């Protein structure tokens, strides 16, 4: 092997290591992120570390679901369902709280650095 061959092997190794590194980095979410799912499909990711108030609209099973964020908290403001349980729930702000809009098949989870594996209740 001459110098160029060795260089090529080093480059290939670096690319391989870099890919692995990127693969692992992208596995982790940002601190305090809200993830919104429609059934199993992740449809929106919101960074909750912003101090701004924002409004989002996602499509649920029964139509639009209006979502509001404020200072690290998130809530459902309006949706079409018989009992409106998820709009009545109000803001959630930690990973042990989840908003589940059962008729609309919308789930809002918060990912933060909390070490709990699950919450029962």
């Amino acid at each position: 092997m001459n110098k160029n061959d060795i260089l090529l092997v080093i480059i290939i190794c670096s690319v391989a290591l870099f890919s692995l590194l990127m693969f692992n980095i992208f596995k982790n979410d940002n601190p305090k992120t809200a993830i919104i799912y429609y059934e199993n499909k992740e449809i929106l990711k919101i960074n909750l570390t912003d101090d701004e108030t924002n409004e989002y609209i996602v499509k649920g099973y029964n139509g639009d679901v209006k979502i509001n964020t404020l200072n690290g908290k998130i809530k459902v403001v309006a949706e079409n369902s018989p009992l409106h349980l998820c709009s009545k729930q109000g803001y959630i702000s930690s990973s042990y709280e989840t908003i589940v809009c059962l008729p609309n098949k919308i789930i809002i989870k918060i990912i933060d650095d909390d070490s709990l594996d699950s919450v029962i209740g």
Partner: protein
Amino acid sequence: MAKKLLISVISLIIIAFVIVVIVFNEQEYTSNLFYMDTYISVKVTTSKYKSNVILNDIDKIFNKYENMTNRYSDSELSKINNKVGTFEISNELSDMIKISLEWYNKSNGLFNINIGNIVDVWKKYRTNKNGVPTVDELNLDINIDNISLYGNKITVKNANIDLGALVKGYVTNELKSYLKSKNIKKYVINAGGNVIVGNKKNDYKIGIQNPDGGLLTTVNVNNKCVVTSGGYERYYEYNGVRYHHIINPFTKFPSNYMKSVTVISKDCTKADIMSTTLFLMTIEDGKKLAESNNVKVIWYSNDNEIIEENYE
């Protein structure tokens, strides 16, 4: 030429190695399911290669029990409820009914699966959020002797069987066996009030919700089921009184001995049945039942006291 070949081979080996690592690298895969009138969160640690099959199979297992026990759809259970006669039923349904009948005796009648008609009356009131059922409306036959089981043959009359107090536990037991057969060690499945966890180096940390808001406490568990019963999720209020969904078969009214009770056991069916049964009795009586059945229990009393007993 030989050098070039050598470099090509080394490159190919490295690329193959990266692909293998990416495909077989274990990480957490999740899915959200909706069965048994509840949201189910599934987290399994496995390879990308296996993940689709595993998550699909878990979905199928929940779906199987939904089609077996949902009283409000064309399920296997619906075909025998409110009918008169002898019917042949599946092994799983017969096993769940058998376990329930045994627990009827163990609990001196508190765990009664022939309570479907009473549950329906309360459900109607909970939906309308108006009024309380009258004594006449609740004067329904819930005698457990209306159900008799011989192997896979069931004879029923005046029976409306509700398996809601154990089916989630029974499904999670099956999931545990399934995941073991697929050599999956790390998992957390949360089906409403039922959580099952696998094995990992450090214990799983499970939070127990405080019925008054926030977290009540946390438990560290490995290879266990944690089941909570409480009257704080499905309820309605009328004239300042809260009426929830866990009904005492003797009074036919919601039970109010405590705010919540959590049972921890390796056997998920037992944990599920016991959380309902313990919710229907005083904490003192519950301690005796917990001791004779070797489970760990965390009661949250009406005076906001956390009482823990470990009989495992």
